[in-house]
């Protein structure tokens, strides 16, 4: 286990820049999630850390060790590939034992460690099966066992759960989290599922076009997005365009004045920017909530029942639309066509 440090890491494919001057430190034992839309360079970063792809520029350190020039087999990395990439001709036990055999451990030690790794992922009973005789979730666990059994300096997971159904995904997510905590292993998990990232990681990195948009805790990113891209990528958000007119005041193009408390560094007070607020931070009702700083009136256009919450589409007089998520059992029933007032606090309002 070790700290991982990436210094100005860059990858070009011809003239195309897949990863641009990336610097990042992952603390010993930390669980970092790397997320971003398809093609933003997530897999490329993992491949550079594991040595499968050579970095065009920059350095990679595991603890005090500079591994930049090392081939993958000299790096001691546990990598779980998106498609698992199990050895099809080997049994589950042989798959897990492979990395230990490469380290020339003695038979007894290998048997012992393979067994305990399979116990950890709850597959001890399937040791002699071939990968093709396993379900997707079981294959995923074999891949995980194979990666952790070698006691790697870092565990790299490339969309480990994307091929699984929602329920299994939830289960395995918990399992990965538990495993990572108990082993205290430095972990980077690539995903483009924001829910997965929020629930697994202590810190998140949001990538866009090969660059880091923002690094922070899940709540940092959710409450204080550094850009409109992050705000849209993590959770849902309402946005209205306009400009900052005072330290805590924003005027939309349509003339509404909103108070805000958070402004991203990139949104300067002179340039056009956007004010954002999350759908679930808005109160919807016939009367305004005077305790909250921001208000706007509108007409309910559509109502979607979502189970735990209900989604309201509200049309403002300016024809802009806002989305509101409210508890499924409103105090006063609201129907389509009703005139409503929306209220939310200045703390829940950010400018990007």
């Amino acid at each position, binding site marked *: 286990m070790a700290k991982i440090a990436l210094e100005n890491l860059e990858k070009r494919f011809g003239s195309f820049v897949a990863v641009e001057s990336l610097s990042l430190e992952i603390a010993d034992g930390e669980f970092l999630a790397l997320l971003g839309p398809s093609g933003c360079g997530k897999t490329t970063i993992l491949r550079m850390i594991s040595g499968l792809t050579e970095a065009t520029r920059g350095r990679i350190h595991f603890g005090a060790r500079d591994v930049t020039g090392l081939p993958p087999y000299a*790096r001691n990395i546990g990598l779980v590939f998106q498609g698992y990439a199990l*050895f099809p*001709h080997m049994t589950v036990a042989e798959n897990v034992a492979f990395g230990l055999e490469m380290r020339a451990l003695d038979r007894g030690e290998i048997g012992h460690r393979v067994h305990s790794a399979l116990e950890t992922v709850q597959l001890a009973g399937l040791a002699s099966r071939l990968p093709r005789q396993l379900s997707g979730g079981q294959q995923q666990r074999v891949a995980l066992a194979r990666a952790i059994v070698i006691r790697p300096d870092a565990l790299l997971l490339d969309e480990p759960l994307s091929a699984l159904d929602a329920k299994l995904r939830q289960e395995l997510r918990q399992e990965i989290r538990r495993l990572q905590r108990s082993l205290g292993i430095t972990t980077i998990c690539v995903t483009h599922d924001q829910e997965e990232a929020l629930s697994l990681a202590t810190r998140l990195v949001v990538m866009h076009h090969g660059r880091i948009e923002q690094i922070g805790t899940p709540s940092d990113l959710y409450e204080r997005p550094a850009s409109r891209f992050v705000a849209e990528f993590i959770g849902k958000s309402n946005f209205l365009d306009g400009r900052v007119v005072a330290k805590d005041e924003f005027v939309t193009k349509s003339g509404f004045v909103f108070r805000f408390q958070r402004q991203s560094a990139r949104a300067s007070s002179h340039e056009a920017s956007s004010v954002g607020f999350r759908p679930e931070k808005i109160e919807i009702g016939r009367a305004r909530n005077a305790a909250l700083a921001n208000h706007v009136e509108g007409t309910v256009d559509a109502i979607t029942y979502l189970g735990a919450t209900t989604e309201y589409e509200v049309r403002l007089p300016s024809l802009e639309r806002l989305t509101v998520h409210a508890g499924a059992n409103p105090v006063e029933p609201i129907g389509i066509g009703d005139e409503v007032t929306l209220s939310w606090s200045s703390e829940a309002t950010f400018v990007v």
Partner: protein
Amino acid sequence: MAVSIRALPGRTAFLASVGFAYLIILAPLIAVFWVSFFRNKIIAFPPQGYTLAWFANAWSLDDFRNGFVLSLEVGIIATLGSLLIGVPAALALARHDFRGREAISAALMSPLIVPGIVAGTAVYMFYIEIETWTDVQLAATLPGLCLAHVVLALPWTVRLVTASLIGVNRLVEEAAMTLGAGPVKTLWRVTLPMIRPAIVAGGLFSFVVSFVDLEKSLFLVGPGRMTLPIAIINYLEWSIDPTIAAVATIQILIISAALLLTDRFVRLSRVF
């Protein structure tokens, strides 16, 4: 249900045409097999009775016995040679991009395209050239014959193994590397086992094409020596008794066994 009933005439026609195709392909083989048991001295229908005497006769003739042994020898050497050269060649062709890759690939495949007689003549002339330049005799020697058969068998190994390598998931090999396996260990423990069916199939095909080759061998065997196909042709010049059918039956059985064995390792229908 309605669909399958309406499809019924089409299905019957399909099965009939498949059956007809099989008949055309198999009829000569069945005929040879049948004739090899005829008692008649001259192949004629209907048979006057059945006997195993022609098989005994075939084995008692030196030409057939020696031809069989020589064909077996050459076939085995051609198989080994084809694998030893073909597998590394396929690895290089499928995995690396280098100057002249297309040319080498085409050269390795060319024995499939050049007619056997032409290739036989060419190899013979090539051997004579070599001999005049270096004093090394290849024409009319066993090494020369084996070398030609290796070349004849190579395309099969290269083609089967390349096709199989293209289907191998590179990520599996990369997984081996991240687990600590260097390039050689990865090749030995992961890549080769994954393409083993194609290697087995390539070997068996190599054996079969060598075992049945007539045209090239005609030019390259030494005086007085002959492979089994040459012995068959020679014998046909003088007699047309069912001995020839008995020899052909043995040959067919050996080849069928090789193909059935291959099919156990790799579904042949998936290769072509």
